[in-house]
């Protein structure tokens, strides 16, 4: 049964008090993002991302299908995020209508799918009759806060790592070449959105915050589960390496200073840049271990410049 986690009063008070004196339970600074690890499985597009204790697994798959009738030149791209009691007892099986679950899947959807991070026109095979359907299955394994940030990294790393089988079009027939026969082809990634979540706390009473001259709210990046449960407001910004804001989401909660938004975006950009590089490097490393013999088998001549 889905049970809300309850933080005891004394613990809640303790967490707030520590925040007031610029400390966090895990010793991080307010602007520190937890360490991210990215590991790939045997298949292309099988990726496990950990963010501190939070674990998210993402699996990309594809199949050939018919495109939507009103979009004959586009392939299909679907992200499905489903939570199970594995991630924590607060999640219920098959029940994805909870407020948190909906919010998580909406934000990932907006950040990745609606921002056209994946080139879906490149998934078209024969206009109006055949296209690729790419599916990202996000599995929440361990919940210690920051599901949105971790899932976004997992989906993007998965998409960038994934390769679909090569095809040849022969008249009306599509020939799918098995992976052993022809090198599979990667997907077209247009940009890499990265989500960074900020949590807000109000050290004074509510009235002082709304009416007060100076908003003294506390802003921290990448809250853990306990910090998430305590927060008064939340903001998720999605940026890419081109300094573009892809998505901003603040669903009510503590009102924030407009200038803080700019400040948050600045802080997020640094993290975005670092994570993007980390994903690219992880993929490079992984391809290298897969293709141990590529350099020996290559028939390409050495080129000198």
């Amino acid at each position: 049964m889905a049970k809300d986690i309850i933080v005891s009063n004394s613990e809640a008070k303790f967490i707030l008090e520590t925040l007031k004196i610029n400390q966090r339970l895990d010793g991080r600074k307010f602007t520190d993002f937890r360490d991210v690890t990215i590991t790939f499985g045997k298949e292309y597009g099988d990726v496990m991302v950990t963010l501190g204790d939070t674990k998210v697994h993402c699996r990309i798959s594809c199949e050939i299908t018919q495109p939507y009738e009103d979009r004959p030149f586009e392939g299909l791209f679907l992200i499905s995020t489903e939570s199970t009691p594995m991630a924590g007892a607060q999640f219920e099986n098959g029940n994805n209508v909870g407020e948190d679950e909906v919010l998580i899947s909406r934000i990932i959807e907006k950040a990745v799918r609606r921002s056209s991070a994946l080139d879906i026109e490149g998934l078209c095979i024969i206009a109006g009759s055949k296209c690729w359907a790419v599916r990202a299955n996000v599995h929440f394994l361990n919940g210690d806060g920051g599901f949105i940030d971790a899932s976004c990294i997992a989906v993007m790393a998965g998409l960038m790592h994934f390769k679909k089988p090569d095809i040849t079009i022969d008249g009306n027939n599509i020939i799918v070449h098995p992976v052993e026969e022809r090198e599979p082809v990667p997907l077209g990634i247009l940009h890499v959105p990265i989500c960074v979540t900020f949590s807000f706390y109000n050290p004074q009473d509510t009235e002082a915050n709304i009416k007060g001259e100076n908003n003294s709210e506390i802003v921290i990046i990448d809250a853990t589960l306990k910090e998430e449960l305590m927060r008064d407001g939340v903001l998720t910004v999605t940026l890419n390496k081109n300094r573009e804001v892809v998505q901003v989401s603040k669903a009510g909660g503590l009102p924030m200073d407009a200038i803080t938004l700019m400040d948050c975006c600045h802080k997020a950009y640094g993290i975005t840049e670092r994570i993007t590089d980390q994903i690219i490097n992880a993929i490079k490393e992984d391809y290298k271990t897969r293709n141990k013999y590529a350099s020996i088998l290559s028939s390409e001549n050495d080129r000198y410049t």
Partner: protein
Amino acid sequence: MSNDLEKTIDIHPVSFTPEVLARISPELSLQKHLSLGFRPSLKGFEEFREIQLNEDFLSRYGKEHKDNNIIGSNVLKCGDTFVVTTITGGIIEDSVVYKNMENELIGVDDIKSTDLSNYTSIYPVVEVERGRAGACTDEEMALSQRLYDYVLYSKILPKEALKVQPGIRITDNNNGNAKVIYPDSSDNSTLPDNVFQISKKWSYLLYAKIKVFSRTGPVFDLCWNSLMYALQSVQLPRAFVDERATDLKMTIRTKGRNATIRETYEILSDPCQQYSLRLHSENIAYASNYGIINLDPEAKITEENSDEDIDMDAIESVLLADLDTEAEENSVNSTISVISNSEGGLKHVSIFGGDAKITPEMLKKLLKLSQKRACYLEDEIK
């Protein structure tokens, strides 16, 4: 208060009629029956129920011509339970060619016939009627999936048998009469050779709807047997495309771009011509189910022998064939289901072990029984 204590109270042992006892304590009632040497259904331990068949009465090719889209059917009655299986079909386009270098070098057909990927299955939906509507239960979903899996693993249904060889409907320009010509028919010599070279390929798909009425016990074996009988009655209608549709192209325009789309052909089923589905009939086998239960030594105590010393630790277990009634279904938790043919060849065995130990001797015995049962079930259809 003190008055009450002085009254004498008579204590009578509570007794129930067998029907009531079976309701309130099915386990006890079952044990009592077994200790007397028979089962609550009054069958012997290794006795099966008889079945009655009503072969292919419901389909359009059945004894009475019917105007429906059922292409194979079976009604099976076993004890109080009815199972009605109806098979319908569909046609899908085989759009994707999985190219495999191996297949090009060596002939595909004969060499890889053992490969599971050359076989397909039927898509069954099992409905166990309980007198109420609602979402399907886990039991129904698991049953459907088991039927699907075991048809596939039995290698009964080769993909080759479901390939469509479409004919062409030709309209005579002079009198406007349409006629359908198939590649193997005799009067196609007048046609140009390339007429039948349609680049698309189609396959039939088979769906089975299995309805179970008045369920009294586990129904997997009944559903399987009914499905086997129904599959053997399936006749596939021939299919054809219209000659005008053999090379249809359509232009579409979106966001200022043009593309030519080869429209899907309209493929139609012939209402008059059909042929029997070519199953791998040597792989057809029939199902039976068994249970093993430990006898409760206490149940052996009767009024006559209540003074005798009965060894309470000696566990004795019995094999029950063809589980039926709620008491047996709930109290027997070591169950075995077998799909076997009359020669003793096995297609499927599943064992779910519970309290009662499944010994090799029992396994041997029940495999023999399955073979006998399969003989009986096989003869029913002939």
